[in-house]
């Protein structure tokens, strides 16, 4: 069901490469996530900055994944849906070593790229079938598969679970 958007994004990527100005489609619905820094694909290019401003339509072009895990701030296991951070970085051809994730309350955490390639780190937009909203932990929540990897059950990973995520900076 994501075939067509995927195809269109791919075509756009190819055409933009030919024109040496890589642009993503402009968001048509409210922007959910903004990605800045060292990325090859973007849709906003100001004088000093290029950004990929992604609305739900663009985010839906990424493969959907489901992750069931417990969290340190809720009871029991929860079912999360969303896309892998790895897929997003690959799609934007992000180049760097860390990702600075910023929440709506300006909570900023630097996460090494290595985390996303070693673990299936999910950027969730739903929990237990309900869409995450800014009033809860939305619009997006970085979720680690802590139940399947013992080393992730550590406070040094717990602070990387950024919720109310709305911005990424590739560094």
């Amino acid at each position, binding site marked *: 069901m994501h075939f067509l958007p995927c195809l269109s994004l791919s075509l756009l990527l190819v055409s933009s490469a030919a024109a040496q100005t890589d642009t993503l489609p402009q968001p048509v619905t409210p922007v959910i996530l903004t990605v800045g820094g060292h990325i090859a694909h973007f849709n906003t290019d100001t004088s000093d900055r290029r950004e990929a401003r992604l609305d739900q339509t663009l985010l839906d072009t990424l493969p959907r994944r489901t992750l069931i895990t417990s969290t*340190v*701030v*809720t009871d029991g296991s929860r079912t999360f849906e969303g896309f892998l951070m790895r897929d997003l970085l690959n799609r934007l051809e992000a180049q760097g070593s860390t990702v600075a994730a910023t929440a709506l*309350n300006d909570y900023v955490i630097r996460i090494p790229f290595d985390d996303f390639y070693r673990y299936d780190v999910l950027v969730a937009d739903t929990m237990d079938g309900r869409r995450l909203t*800014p009033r809860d*932990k939305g619009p997006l929540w970085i979720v680690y598969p802590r139940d399947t990897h013992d080393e992730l059950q550590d406070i040094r990973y717990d602070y990387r679970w950024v919720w109310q995520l709305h911005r990424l900076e590739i560094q």
Partner: protein
Amino acid sequence: MIRPPRTRYLLPTVAIVALVVFLSGSLLQLLQLEKDMRLHVDENMLWVVTQAQVAGHRLADDVHRYSHGDTGANPSLRFDILASRLALMHDGPQRRYLEALGHTNDLDHTLHTLERLEPALAAPDMHTNSALIHTLLAPLLARLNSIANAVMVAEWESAGTRIDTYRSNMLQVIGLIIGILFSGLMLVVLLIRALQQQGRAHHALACHRDELENEVQRRTRDLEAERRRVVTAIETAPDGFAAFDNENRLTLVNPQFSNLLPVPPEVLEQGLHLHSLLTKIRGIARIEKDDTEALALDVNGHLQCDLELANRGWRQLTVRKARDGGQIIRVADITNYKAAAKGLERSLQLERGVSEFHRSFAGMVSHQFRTPMAVIDSGLQRLLRRGSTMNHDERQQRLHSMRASVAQMIRLIESSLTAARLDGGTVHLQSRQQDLVALTRQCCRLPQTLHARIQINASAPALTTWCDPILVEQILNNLLTNAIKYSPATTDIHIYLGDSSDQVFCAVEDKGIGIAPDDIPYIFDRFFRSSNASGSPGVGLGLNISLNLAQIQKGNITVTSTEGEGTTFTLWLPKNQIQEEDFGYG
């Protein structure tokens, strides 16, 4: 010092048990510590509450800015963030934490305030509601502040308690590690002591081994010297020795052994079996006790016997069981002993013969001398009484009769003397080559003048023999006298001379009264008189003397006789000289 085994292992066992206990205890303490360090959910609560406070203050700030026309302010977003922070505090773990602190009411009140704030923020004219919003936010922030205060105190208390626990745990672990250290040190000390003891034991063992080796070498030298002495003694001993091991295999033999017994030296090799050697000895020697077919050992493994070796004399063979189970053979030269024993035996027999002769001679004298003495006495009495009245012829008859009696007594005495000389071994042979035919004719010359009936038949003109002619003449005279005495005067006496391969014979044949068959075995016994010869004068010495004289010349006399028809005595003499025995007559 050597401890009993139980005590020796007690200390290491205690040290090892202590080490295990201390290690296990410290491990358990560290595991508990690790678990405690994982349980720190409250560490994040202060951040959660302060973030909620910040969100509340930023909402108030944005509302204020928005009411003054700042378009950059976003009260709606700030409200959402505040709502999310309060929702977070309301979630499971966080709410339980706050409940434990007794701030459930405050939490519920903040949520209640949030519900009243939302319509105020949603109103079209926020400027008019700004005062209301601030009025609602002030107590909310105050309650959040109260919660933050309580959380801070609780976390500090918790941190203090946890630090106390950690410290206590660490002290226990330190104590256990000190225990481990001491146990380990004790084990190291015990190990070093054990190694030292082992080293000393090895050294002592090496010393002991060296001493033992020296002792063995010394004993071996002594044994070797002793063995050499024994071997030398055995080899130089006059007797022959052969030693056999437990399996009766020859192990040692001295040179004298093969000198005394004609056993080839190559036979006397190591490993020769005892019974095999005895069988060989049996084959080359004659055992004195001929009833022994083989040289057999008795039940004790012992044997002693005298052996006669051809031309080598006598040996005494002794087999004895050695103390270690083997056998020892001793061979001694007993030739001289045997010769002496035989000489003694012969002397004894001689003495017995002389003694017997004396007894018989006394009896014979009492009997045989009485008759001629009576004849002489009777003749003398007659001559005394009637000498004057006797005529010459009668007196001559009496005197001849008395002389005949005297002559008989003289012959009797001569025969007795000859017999005595024979018994005493004083007859000396003077043998030489002699023609028996000539000697026989010479002997027959005198009797032939009295008895023309003696006929001599010789197979050859001369028959040479090795003999003493005087003794042979005495034998022939005796045989001729007997032939004449015991045969009628009308019959002839034949003498036949001849020879065999190594002997010459002279047979004297008469046609006389003969000898009773029962008497023939005893005819050569001394003083034996045949039953049918009692009427003739004689003492029974002649044939005995003749046989003895023949035998000392390596000859013999045989007799054949038929009672009433006649008797033939045959003298046998060697043709050539025969080696004299060592113990032969002079």
